[in-house]
């Protein structure tokens, strides 16, 4: 198993499948009366969050606690972080505290890579800038697998602000590793120059792609992007790239609709679509805990364990 989880590209096919298989076992424990596993007893997991993301932090916290780890939340607000302490100094502090794993959410791309150079513990990227969010991709893959029974050969369409999306980057990499065919749909302004090197097809025409999709994943689009002329108006964006009821009908019957959240209802996704039975949005949240348990279990529970090895 890899040492840190910084990018979805860190996971080879075997490792990725091991995470997904382990997540199934973790999910099974959630239905037991005693939900906790003793695996990480005595180990310290730090949630180091430089961005507000209550949902992701809670997901990691729940995962760590179900593995019996001690959890320390180190959030940007009200800590030394906001007083201008450097990431390196924070890393040295966490090192001194004996952090076994640091889950980091940071507005700057690559911050987890820097952190990993300054810490002995495991670093898990919980979203860095516009770079990656590998555990989101893992939980998305887990969700596809549980709904559709496989990932190999699935046609996955990712729609929206690919340029600024860490979810898209991680999903493209992981889905390619797992054998899915990815199509990216976005206005050309919201696709990065250089996207042609990604293992994905690009289209500007959502209606043409939907009938050939097993999964459609809608990305959050910030309304402020229109101020930088990435698109003219919210209305035009929704009309050209939003998933409404009509477009939902164009999907094959078995196809599912995903969204990493938080949603802009009425912008990239219509409320009726978000709440439809095709939508996996709620189960993505619960799957997130299982997948994050699996990641911590595999990265921390193995040979690096202080007590169990």
């Amino acid at each position, binding site marked *: 198993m890899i040492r840190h989880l910084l990018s979805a590209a860190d996971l080879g096919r075997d490792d990725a499948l091991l995470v997904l298989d382990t997540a199934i076992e973790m999910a099974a424990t959630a239905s037991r009366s005693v939900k906790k596993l003793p695996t990480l007893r005595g180990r310290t997991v730090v949630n180091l969050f430089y961005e507000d993301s209550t949902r992701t932090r809670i997901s990691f916290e729940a995962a760590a606690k179900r593995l019996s780890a001690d959890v320390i939340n180190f959030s940007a607000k009200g800590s030394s972080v906001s007083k201008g302490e450097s990431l390196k100094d924070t890393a040295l502090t966490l090192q001194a505290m004996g952090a076994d794993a640091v889950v980091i959410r940071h507005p700057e791309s*690559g911050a987890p890579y820097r952190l990993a150079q300054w810490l002995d513990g495991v670093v898990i990227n919980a979203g860095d800038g516009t770079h990656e969010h590998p555990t989101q991709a893992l939980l998305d893959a887990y969700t596809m697998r549980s709904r559709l029974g496989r990932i190999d050969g699935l046609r996955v369409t990712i729609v929206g602000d690919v340029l600024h999306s860490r979810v898209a980057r991680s999903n493209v990499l992981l889905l390619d590793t797992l054998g899915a065919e990815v199509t990216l749909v976005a206005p050309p302004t919201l696709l*990065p120059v250089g996207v042609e090197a990604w293992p994905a097809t690009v289209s500007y025409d959502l209606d043409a792609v939907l009938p050939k999709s097993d999964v459609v994943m809608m990305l959050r689009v910030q309304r402020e992007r229109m101020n930088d002329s990435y698109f003219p108006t919210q209305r035009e964006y929704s009309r050209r790239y939003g998933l409404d009821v009509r477009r939902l009908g164009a999907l094959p019957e078995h196809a599912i609709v995903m969204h990493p959240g938080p949603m802009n209802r009425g912008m990239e996704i219509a409320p009726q679509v978000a709440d439809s039975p095709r939508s996996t949005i709620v189960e993505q949240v619960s799957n997130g805990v299982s997948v994050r348990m699996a990641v911590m279990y595999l990265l921390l529970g193995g040979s690096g364990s202080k007590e169990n090895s």
Partner: protein
Amino acid sequence: MTTYLIQGAAIGAGAPTDLLLRDGVIAETGTGLSAAGAERIDAGGLVALPGFVDLHTHLRQPGREDAETVETGSMAAALGGYTAVCAMANTDPVADTAGVVEQVWRLGQEAGLVDVQPVGAITVGLAGERLAELGAMAESAARVRMFSDDGHCLADPALMRRALEYVKAFGGIIAQHAEEPRLTQGAQMNEGVQSARLGLTGWPAVAEEAIIARDALLAGHVGSRLHVCHVSTAGSVEIIRWAKSKGWQVTAEVTPHHLLLTDELAGGYDPVFKVNPPLRTAEDVGALREGLADGTIDVVATDHAPHTREDKECEWGCARPGMLGLETALGVVAEAMISTGLLDWDGVADRMSTAPARIAGLSGHGRRLETGAPANLVLVDPAAPWTVRADELASISRNTPYAGLRLPARPVATFLRGHATVLDGKGQW
């Protein structure tokens, strides 16, 4: 003053020759020279070149003496084989008055290791809004001829035109940091495959090329001298080639790092590889080398940019752009241009000394090593591979992108008007 007899150094790509340095000049050249009382330097196997001239150095003084001072930057320059450096104006306070440029010039004189030629800011405070007193800086003791808002692009086309015109009155030249600001908002690295993968905001080649094209057209229109700083893209080389073909007075520089390194180095997010303009692709590196070889690009300039640990030991997006360059320039140029056969040592002498001295108007530098010339020269060991160690550099800062890299050649002795500033690779201070 010590008299030096340099024995058996190849003059550039030429034959081994003796050089007698006395009273600040090259007193004699020839073979089998002897001079009573002279300190002999066995230069067999070494190459003698005119002392290097750097058109683009950030010495950080006044204002950021925690990163570099005129004195430590001068040490780094001497060790790199330089006898003159042009100190960029983006200090604090900005070198936009006669007072500040004279201060920097005096600090250079006091250090006494290289000639420190201040560059004046074009606009007040580098703000790009109104001209600084360019004439006053030209008439000051610092005798400023080159003006630049480097660090910022002078984006306003009308102001750029006026600056180009105005400095003609005193033989000045405008050096532009070509970066269209609207196209590089928040830019972190070269825009392309790597930036897409790394999720870092792209700095597109067109942002450089569009400004160079505009400025070349302006320089042609008003008959003024334009110098393009740190050319970094293949497209820029083409535009400069075209501008020169028109007969316009356009010159250009390339940095050592743009001749050797590519944007793939951003992959680990270590900001030691963050620089502005950013590292580009291997294709760009190839075009820059060719442009330097065929003379489209006139000079190698370091853009030596010291930064403190705090400004580099952080997230990529929070780090300041810039790299050390003075002490490694010759080695990198040897790797990129000599080892590849693109330039010989005469070519290196031209691109690192003669051409930059001419552009900067430094008449005592960049001269042929012949009798009567000022004794500004460097002895290079062309076959002395060495490994760059950040801790061994003379700069206060440590932000070299070459740490651990093996370079094929290094300067072993530097003379400023006959004074040895470096002997046996060691600073004489």
